[in-house]
Structure formats: C-alpha cells, structure tokens
C-alpha cells in the first residue's frame, strides 16, 4: 500500500529525530510532497486518537514533533523518575512574555519594560531552550535579539506565535515597538554626547 508506507515512514522519521523537524526536511526524507504532509499527519493523529495511543504529533511553527499525550504525564514521570518541573518564576514569565509578544527583541527592550536588569533571567530562558538568539540589531553595540522557540510553543500548547492570547487592553494601550524603542535610545544617546 502506497499511503500506508508513507505514513510508516513519516512515523519512523518523527520518532527517530525526537526534536521538531521542519516540514521541508520531513518531506525530503519521506518522499511525501510538502503540501500533502499536513493531511498525512492528520491521518496519523486520528489513528492515535481512535486507539487511545500514548503519543501524538504536534505542529510547532513549520515543524512537526512527536510527543506524549498530556494525560499520561503521571505514568511517564514515574517511569523517568523525574519530579514535576517547577513552574517558571514570575521574573522569567515576565521576560518570556515580553519576548514572545514583541519578538525579535533585545535584552535592552526587555529591561526597559521590566525596569530592571534582566540578563540572568534571559540567560536562564536560553538555557531552558524557551528562547534563542535571532541575530543582532544593526545599531551601536550590535545587541543580540531573541525570539521564542519550538520548545516555547510546545510548553504553552501553541502551534505558532500567532496563537498567543490577545494582549490585555491592547486596543487602547499600545506597547512601544522595538523600532520606537531603538529610535528613542539613539535620540537619548545623541543628547548625552
């Protein structure tokens, strides 16, 4: 059977790679057209659902990843002998939220909103794989900018940042954009020169 084989190949690749795998890479390796892939993944997910499988395939941005279903968390935790992961601290959640809604942003932007040094908080988010480097800003100091990762999406049950919950009162209270922030910083730097 053609389709059966393709589904098997997709499953094997997702299982073996462990990490999220981009659609184009999955398509290249499995020989399944990138346009058809989403419907194939849907077929697999339906099958898992029907037989109450312990696994499922999640779409994270333009990647797919195989993971366990939430409901089996207690059993998996018992087997791996891991403790419940401690939730993120308030400081980490604040920094993560600022990065998620304004990405890509520099550390300076995060610090400006929080009003306090955020280096260690951001380093911690990088270590946890929730945010990653996304190049540098072409302004004096060439600051590194950060964006959220597939781990972030998976951890918060999102399939893309477009799915982030709307900001509270966004309509009447607009956050300063990274551009405006940089402009202002530059203007201030000039003044003090």
């Amino acid at each position, binding site marked *: 059977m053609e389709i059966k084989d393709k589904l098997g190949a997709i499953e094997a690749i997702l299982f073996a790679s462990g990490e999220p795998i981009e659609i184009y890479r999955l398509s290249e390796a499995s020989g399944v057209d990138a346009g058809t892939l989403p419907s194939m993944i849907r077929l697999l997910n339906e099958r898992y659902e029907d037989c109450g499988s312990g696994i499922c395939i999640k779409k994270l941005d333009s990647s797919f990843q195989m993971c366990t279903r*939430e409901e089996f968390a207690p059993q998996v935790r018992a087997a791996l002998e891991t403790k419940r992961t401690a939730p993120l601290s308030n400081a980490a959640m604040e920094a993560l939220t600022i990065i998620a809604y304004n990405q890509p942003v520099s550390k300076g932007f995060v610090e400006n909103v929080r009003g306090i040094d955020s280096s260690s908080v951001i380093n911690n988010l990088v270590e946890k794989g929730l945010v990653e480097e996304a190049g540098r800003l072409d302004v004096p100091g060439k600051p590194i900018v950060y964006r959220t990762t597939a781990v972030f999406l998976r951890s918060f049950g999102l399939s893309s940042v477009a799915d982030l919950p709307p900001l*509270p009162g966004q309509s009447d209270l607009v956050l300063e954009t990274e551009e405006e922030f940089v402009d202002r910083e530059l203007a201030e730097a000039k003044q003090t020169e």
Partner: protein
Amino acid sequence: METISFKLEVFEGPLDLLLSLIAKHKLNICDIEISKLLEQYLLYIDQAHEQNLELAGEFLEMAARLIYIKTASLLPQPEEAEQMKRELEGALIEYSLCKIAAKTLADAFVGGNIFVRSPMKIKADMTYTLVHEPERLAIAYSAISMKNIKSEHAKLHVENKINSVVKRRIVSVMTKVVHILRQLYDSGEVYMDKLYEGVTDRSARVATFLAVLELTRHGRITISDDNTMIFFKGRKNGVDRSWRSKTSSEQ
C-alpha cells in the same frame, strides 16, 4: 519609630514595587500623586535597608527619579515634571499589562506534562557540505560589536553595582554641594534656576537637587518662599566637615 516585625515583600523591580504601592494606596495609575507615592516608596526602601534586604541599583535610581519629578513639579515651569510623570505612568501601565499577559500565559503552561524523546543515536556523516564565499567570514566578524567585550567585562562586577551607584551619587552630590557653596560665597544668594542652567544630564540634575536638600537640612542655606532663590546662611570659615562625613556614612 516602632520596630517592624513583619517580613517585607520582595519585588521584581522598582516598577513592581510602585504598582504594588499604587494598588495598596488606591492611587490612580493614570494620574499618580507623586508626593504620596514617593513617601511610600522611600518608606519601603528604608525598611528594606533596616532588614538588610539587598536592593538592586535600579531601586535607588527610581527613588532619585521620583524625587526629581517631585522637585521639578515645584518649579515655576512644571512642564518637564509633567512630561516625566507621564513617562513614568506610561511605563507603569505597560508593565502592568505585561504582568497580566504573563499571568495568562503562565496559566497555559503544559510543558511539565508533555514529554519528548532525545534523537535516536544513529551513526551518520554530519560533515558540512555547503560552500560559501570567503567574504561571508569578514562580514560576520564585523557584525559583532567590539564594544561587547567592554560591556561584558563591566557586567562581571554586577555584585558591586549597588555600591557603585551609591558611590557615584555621593561624589556627584558632594561636587554639587561645593559648586553651590562656591556660587553663594561670591554673592550670598543665587537663583534656583541658575543652578540647573546648562545641566541636561538627568543624574547631574538629581545631584543638584539633592545637594540643595542636603544644604537646607543642615541649615547652611534657606530657600525663598516662592522656591526661586537660595540664600547663604551665616558665613563660616570653610565648609563644616562634621555633616559631610555624616552624609557619607548615611549613604
């Protein structure tokens, strides 16, 4: 003063503390009463100091900012104070939105309940195969700011940050004290505006203000009823050193 037996709440930063004070004293976030906020803010800083709570330098910077807004609002042209107050209100609103959004996002956290697996260990040749122009290297290299070395270097001394903020403040306040006294030695009086003339740097303005406060507190100067003039009180031989050392030890 009665002893404080409760444990102080710890805040994420000065904005967090301000928001808590605003909520506690039912102030309007869109039109803050600076005097009341400043009073409560300084009270917290004092209590934190008494309980040996380590506060980041940003807390002191915010105190200076509030003091500055309050002073500037007493000046005949309070436009700058208004502007700074609006900026502060904007920052507070932005930060409170951020906190709400962070809470909503935190509620959606499922990361602890979903497990993934590490990649299967398969022997494969991972050697890089793409070919690039050599110029890509020079371009990538110059994209890194060489300033980073220095700024990172500075960050190694974060632990000294509070000290250095305080030290810098003493020095600059003392400089301004001397500066003001020099002007007063000559004429015995000076316009308040003149002290701020040409001083655009925020910390220098704050220092000037603190210097005036310091001198008033020690009775070296008096200020006219309309806050525009400063008068020298009693000419002595040189500056009395006793309060100077006291000021530094207080800081």
